[in-house]
């Protein structure tokens, strides 16, 4: 059992928790992920590590409430336990030798992008960050990004905060103005990462994307997380989750991501109703 040491609501749909998992905290690096189960009948879901405190043995996760399991998790409070928490899984984001990097986060993906930005900053790299949200109410981690970046641009789809538009606009502008990055690292919805890659490709700027496909064991056994990368089948859990964005077949990944959409919607509604009953 793994204890919830802290819980913070970042916005109505996104929650941050710190989980007591000393072995995971000792090893975790930006870009890696964990798999958790809320209770003994629960499903296994992968979440990318949003931070860690090696001394206190805590691992930070930030999750969006999208389905039954994340909803159940969100109903847990400080001092409660979740039944399973395993990791760190996957390969860490490669940051060695990078001097000037653009970090692009979208929505809850910012949670994963942040520790990468922090690590780069710590290494002395120049970090420009662009973080995008649908609207002002969904904004998360702005202060943290500010501290980890030399330059931060916030975008919202509806213009309710920061620049109106999506993350590719300021990126495109920077590239057009002749700014050269050693690498662009992007984490967010598949469609956003697809367009980030489309923006960097003409400038041939190496672009790393963090993939978050359907997964069960997270150790290479099930093959559910397979992606086509440069025409070859790769498993996100052991070969990734970071991949060369130029080689990813995004359209295929987007389709695979919808496999259980109806089930998830149904599960979400179910857990919501249960919650309502309990609340009465």
């Amino acid at each position: 059992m793994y204890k919830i040491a802290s819980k913070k609501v970042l916005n109505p749909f996104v929650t941050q928790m710190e989980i007591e998992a000393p072995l995971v905290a000792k090893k975790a690096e930006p870009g890696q992920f964990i798999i958790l189960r809320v209770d003994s009948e629960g499903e296994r879901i992968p979440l990318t590590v949003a931070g860690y405190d090696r001394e206190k043995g805590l691992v930070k996760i930030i999750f969006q409430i999208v389905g039954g399991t994340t909803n159940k998790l969100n109903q847990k409070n400080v001092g409660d336990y979740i039944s399973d928490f395993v990791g760190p899984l996957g390969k860490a984001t490669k940051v060695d030798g990078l001097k000037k990097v653009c970090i692009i986060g979208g929505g809850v993906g910012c949670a994963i992008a942040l520790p990468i930005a922090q690590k780069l900053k710590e290494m002395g790299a120049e970090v420009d960050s662009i973080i995008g949200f649908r609207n002002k109410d969904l904004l998360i981690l702005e202060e943290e990004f500010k501290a980890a970046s030399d330059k931060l641009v916030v975008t919202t789809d509806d213009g309710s905060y920061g620049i109106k538009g999506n993350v590719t606009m300021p990126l495109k502008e920077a590239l057009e103005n002749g700014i050269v990055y050693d690498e662009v690292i992007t984490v967010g919805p598949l469609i956003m990462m697809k367009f980030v890659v489309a923006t960097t490709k003409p400038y041939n700027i190496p672009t790393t994307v963090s993939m978050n496909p359907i997964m069960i064991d997270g150790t290479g056994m099930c093959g559910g997380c397979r992606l086509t990368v440069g025409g070859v089948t790769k498993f996100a859990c052991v070969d990734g989750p970071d991949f060369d964005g130029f080689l990813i077949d995004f359209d295929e990944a987007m389709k695979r991501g919808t496999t259980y959409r109806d089930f998830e919607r149904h599960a979400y509604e179910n857990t919501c109703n249960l919650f309502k009953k309990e609340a009465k």
Partner: protein
Amino acid sequence: MAANMSLKRNEMPTQDAIIRATNFNEVALGYSEETAIDEALRCLNCKNAPCVAGCPVNIHIPEFIAKVKEGDFEGAYQVIYQSSSLPAVCGRVCPQEKQCEERCIRGIKGESVGIGRLERFVADWHNAHCTETLKKPESNGIKVAVIGSGPSGLTCAGELAKKGYEVTVFEALHTAGGVLVYGIPEFRLPKAIVQKEVDALIALGVDLQTNVVIGKTLTIEELFEAGFKAVFVGSGAGLPRFMNIEGESLNGVYSANEFLTRNNLMKAYKEGSDTPIMKAKHTVVVGGGNVAMDAARTAKRLGSEVTIVYRRTEKELPARLEEVHHAKEEGINFAMLTNPVKINGDENGWVSGIVCDRMELSEPDESGRARPVKIPNSEYEIMTDCVIMSIGTSPNPLIKDTTNGLEVNKYGGIIVDEETALTSLKGVYAGGDAVTGAATVISAMGAGKTAAKAIDEYLKNI
């Protein structure tokens, strides 16, 4: 009592095929005491006991059967338990017809003695009647780490715990049992039986640590630093293979590992499960091994029509005869001499059909099996909404990649000395699918046992 000279063995009672194809309860129901004694009386108690040599862990077969004849079922269990720590499991999933039973003298003229069925009976009898609890042996204070809680790891841990070692088993998943819980379905091996074996290990003092991935959470080097004096690697097979044909990433294409894990480990077949599984109309399973049979029969129980596609003939199917027989009884279609070349999808990215070539058999290939050759212009499409690839696995790279000096063969299997299961690293032993690639439960158990013996000898001498 007089020997039973019937040429036929006692039938195994099973759930009716039509009924069982709609539930996940165990298919085979087991012998009664009377039937077990009657079957035991078919054993001639041969002096040279060829059956024993056919068993990877050399169970004293005639000896345990003699106890069954006398009605001393607990005595029979004790005989088996000397050699095998998982009799209730092996009695169910061992390919006995290719091991002990293949060498049975009664099999020359008639059917061999139902050794596997008797083993299962004895183990189940013990589990139902034995009230004695296992006690932790006196500790010798020496720590040994076992990586993986599948058949090889459980066996190795059990053998060492009995000798007084302080054994810690590290399991990557949230439940112990390895392939016995994620791979083999409930209807063939009830999970309560596996749990009983795991509980027995814990009673022996084994410390079970779930949610620890060796190679990620901890490395083998760190295990030695933490005071473990020897390590057994039983991490199992790993990455599922695909055919590398067009359409394998469509929605509705599973590896058998994923399909079975969702159902067996995550209980996706149960109403209200948190883990989703596709409810297909017509499932095509590609492959002919036991895993393919398990996947097909699971899909059938989820309400799908099922066709197994295999490129050779039924005679070459690597699956156990009994499994093929059960699958057929349950109404699973067998499309033999059929080889997939492409999976078609609809406009939303879901599987709509699988295109196959018809094959014919030609000269034997290097494996000794007849080589399947494509019949020109024989391509046809099977309409399907779900395809399960069950064509084997390749070893998991996690431990190899994080353990300096651990030598592996060109397939990625860990290289060991056959006599001792010792790897290229001092104090590190390995067995099961991590060494051999996908094989049987009993051969993995045999390797766990071999390693335990070698570890004991190694640690006694340092």
